[in-house]
């Protein structure tokens, strides 16, 4: 083997005086960074293997370990950054496509951070959620544009709706891309808080069936795990057309992750690669989408709302309008910062558009066409905190999906190496030894806490605005002001500049 030209990305620092040579770090590191050196009788590290997942840092009983960016630097160059050079070296070694995990980390404008919220002063009392009712209940699904009564003046039934206690759902992550314990944690948390989690394209594991009322089952281009039972098991069905992290391309779960359980759940042979084609091969246009929407509705007797998920791309607004008229009950748009277990780096970092702009454009278009009431609008693609949720609702969303944030609550430290299958936190892995590190009894509490914490914060922000029901914020862009944005950006967002 020739010399690896790459410098290590990280430097493992060990406080020798603290280290008791217990070797816990060695046992915990699936990347084989730490080892006990018999000759020197001390712990040492192979820095080049480290992905900076912090597992050893957190597990070390004497706080002896710290990881930092490797101090060696390339000669300063704003064009040829270290990342660029490292990528070329990786490809020169492998001849392959560069892979990445989690969402787009590049330094591009984050519009959430250029939006500010309003609060009441004097003319309108702010409302204290600890003393007054504050409602976050949200319904997703098609609503008629007016209430209708039958001949006996009885109200006609509405189409099926998903009921959420807060406008937040756990985004699509398949069993396969994440471990069964991660799935169990999220499913149970969703059920305890009264929200929805999404199966992703991984089928529905037996152990998760009990959470059916809180499940969105996904139908994607590979159709993994899709059968009549599966469609009926959830509260809603989502057709996945695209994903923000990798618009326009399919998915690939490598065969080594397809063990007996994944194989059974996905209905594919053990050890085979699970390949999701880039398009659905029965959807080459909007009229084909309509057929699939209605096929799924027929299959479930019109009892489940059907969502269509697309990635945020240049003409999302027109596509969304087509999806609404094709019969979808919910439209989900995933922005270019959305996460993934594995995506080609070039795609992840360069394809798609920011969710904030896509959301504003889609909401505007649906309103112009009088369709907004008929469909619910869900957005995802890097909703990082409760303020992002509030801003999304004010721009026009009904609810958001969170996935990266949900995994962080379970222990993810954003090392962005999910595609290696060696997740030391037991999340993005199928290795039994690693999977068991995530205890779903603990995981569900943490995910539940996250949603409850955000719900409290959303209530505080709503109360400050003098609003006591979430629906009065939906599309209420007067509650937003922009900073550091151009006139054109403000125009697309439909938001005034701070001070106006």
């Amino acid at each position, binding site marked *: 083997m020739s010399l690896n030209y790459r410098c290590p990305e990280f430097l493992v620092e060990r406080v020798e005086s603290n280290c008791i040579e217990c070797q816990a770090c060695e046992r915990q590191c699936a990347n084989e960074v730490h080892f006990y050196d018999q000759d020197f009788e001390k712990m040492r590290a192979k820095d080049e293997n480290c992905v900076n997942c912090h597992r050893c840092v957190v597990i070390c009983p004497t706080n002896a370990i710290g990881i930092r960016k490797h101090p060696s630097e390339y000669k300063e160059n704003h064009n040829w950054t270290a990342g660029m050079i490292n990528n070329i070296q990786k490809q020169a070694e492998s001849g392959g496509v560069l892979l990445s995990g989690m969402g787009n980390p590049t330094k591009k404008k984050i519009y959430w951070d250029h939006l500010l919220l309003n609060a009441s002063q004097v003319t309108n009392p702010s409302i204290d959620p600890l003393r007054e*009712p504050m409602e976050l209940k949200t319904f997703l699904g098609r609503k008629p*544009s007016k209430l209708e009564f039958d001949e006996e003046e009885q109200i006609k039934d509405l189409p099926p709706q998903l009921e959420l206690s807060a406008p937040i759902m756990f985004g699509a992550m398949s069993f396969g891309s994440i471990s069964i314990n991660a799935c169990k944690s999220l499913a149970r948390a969703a059920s305890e808080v009264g929200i929805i989690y999404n199966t992703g394209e991984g089928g529905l594991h037996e152990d998760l069936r009990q959470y059916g009322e809180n499940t969105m089952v996904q139908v994607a281009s590979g159709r993994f795990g899709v059968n009549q039972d599966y469609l009926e098991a959830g509260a809603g069905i989502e057709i996945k057309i695209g994903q923000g992290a990798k618009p326009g391309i399919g998915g690939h779960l490598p065969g080594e992750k397809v063990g007996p359980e994944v194989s059974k759940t996905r209905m594919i042979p053990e050890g085979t690669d699970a390949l999701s084609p880039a398009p659905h091969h029965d959807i080459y246009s909007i009229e084909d989408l309509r057929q699939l929407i209605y096929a799924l509705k027929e299959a479930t007797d019109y009892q489940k709302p059907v969502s269509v998920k697309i990635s945020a791309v240049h003409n999302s607004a027109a596509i969304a309008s087509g999806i609404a008229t094709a019969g979808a009950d919910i439209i989900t748009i995933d922005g270019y910062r959305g996460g993934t277990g594995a995506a080609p780096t070039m795609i992840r970092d360069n394809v798609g558009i920011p969710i904030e702009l896509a959301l504003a454009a889609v909401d505007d278009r649906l309103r112009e066409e009088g369709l907004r009431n008929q469909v619910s609008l869900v957005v995802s693609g890097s909703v990082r905190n409760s303020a992002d949720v509030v801003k999304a609702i004010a721009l026009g969303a009904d609810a958001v999906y969170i996935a990266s944030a949900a995994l962080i609550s379970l222990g993810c430290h954003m090392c962005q190496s999910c595609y290696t299958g060696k997740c030391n936190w037991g999340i993005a892995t199928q290795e039994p030894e690693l999977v068991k590190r995530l205890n779903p009894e603990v995981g569900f509490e943490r995910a539940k806490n996250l949603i409850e914490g955000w719900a409290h914060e959303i209530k505080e922000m709503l109360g400050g*605005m*003098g609003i006591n029901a979430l629906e009065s914020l939906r599309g209420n862009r007067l509650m937003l002001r922009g900073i550091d944005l151009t006139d054109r950006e403000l125009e697309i967002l439909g938001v005034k500049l701070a001070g106006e």
Partner: protein
Amino acid sequence: MVNRQEKVLSGCAISGILNRKGKKFSGREIIDSIALMHDRSNGMGGGFAAYGIYPERKDEYAIHLFYDDLEAKNKVEKFLNCHFDISVGEVVPTREISSIEDSPLIWRYFSKPEEQKLSASGLEEDEYVAQCVMNINSDYQGAFVVSSGKNMGVFKGVGYPEEIGEFYKLEEYEAYLWTAHGRFPTNTPGWWGGAHPFTLLDWSIVHNGEISSYGANKRYLEMFGYKCSMMTDTEAITYLFDLMLRKHDLPLEVAVKAVAAPLWSEIERMEVEEQQLVKSIRQVYSSALLNGPFSIILGHQNGFIALNDRIKLRPLVVAEDEERIYVASEESAIREICADPDKVWSPRGGEAVIGLLEGRSEIE
């Protein structure tokens, strides 16, 4: 017109009197009632709605207009002449009041939709008139339609409400329903059109408060063709009721439950049938929910609805005697004109008080 604000922040006084038997009385009493609450306004706006004042022309739309200048008047009259058959066009009579300055040209036109235009439009008569009104308000610089209902009129301007009442000689009009408003705006004053009541067709509204859901309500209404871009949050309330009662033909109690929706915690305790109804209302009309502090009196030819926001962040008191029902921001404003009512109460948040003329079962 100058100073058109998208959302006018203001505190206010409101008052209303209905004679349920339809007996008419002069504007003197409503002026006295609103005058008692002088300190709740700051001289930046006052106004009145009067129902039953034009019995001799009760089948014609009485279109009241403000003009900044003759140029605006000429343009709008051209539009009116093209879209309506006008039987009378006249100056609204006023008297000199020292504190009332810079009044616009104030005109009214008794008119019917021009028949060919109406049939060519394919619209119902009311919808035709509503669209004409919204066109004038949004497209004609320097003109503002003050009211457009039948057998009713709105009289408003910049000043204390009692001065506005004197200015318009309201003691000379007789109505069976009067509502009044005194305004305390916290931003730029000075626009006559910005005073309350706001109207569309027979609907008039006086409003104390601020609608924090305005941005959501406005964008919802725009989907149904209402042009709110230059209006106030108060006008949006008028349009919401117009949408639900006139266009969607909903029963009044349904519309009330949409704008001041019961809390989910209350809904959970309801009987199954009612629960299903209210749950559906909240889902379908979620964008019609009015959030923020408000008390409103919504006037109509058949009566009125008085309503608070669902957690009662603004005052509203109701009283009754043998023939009349009174509503006001303060009890004193009722006692000023009816010293000893049979019954006085303060309605709960979100609980609509509906005053109807005898023999009418519905507002619309």
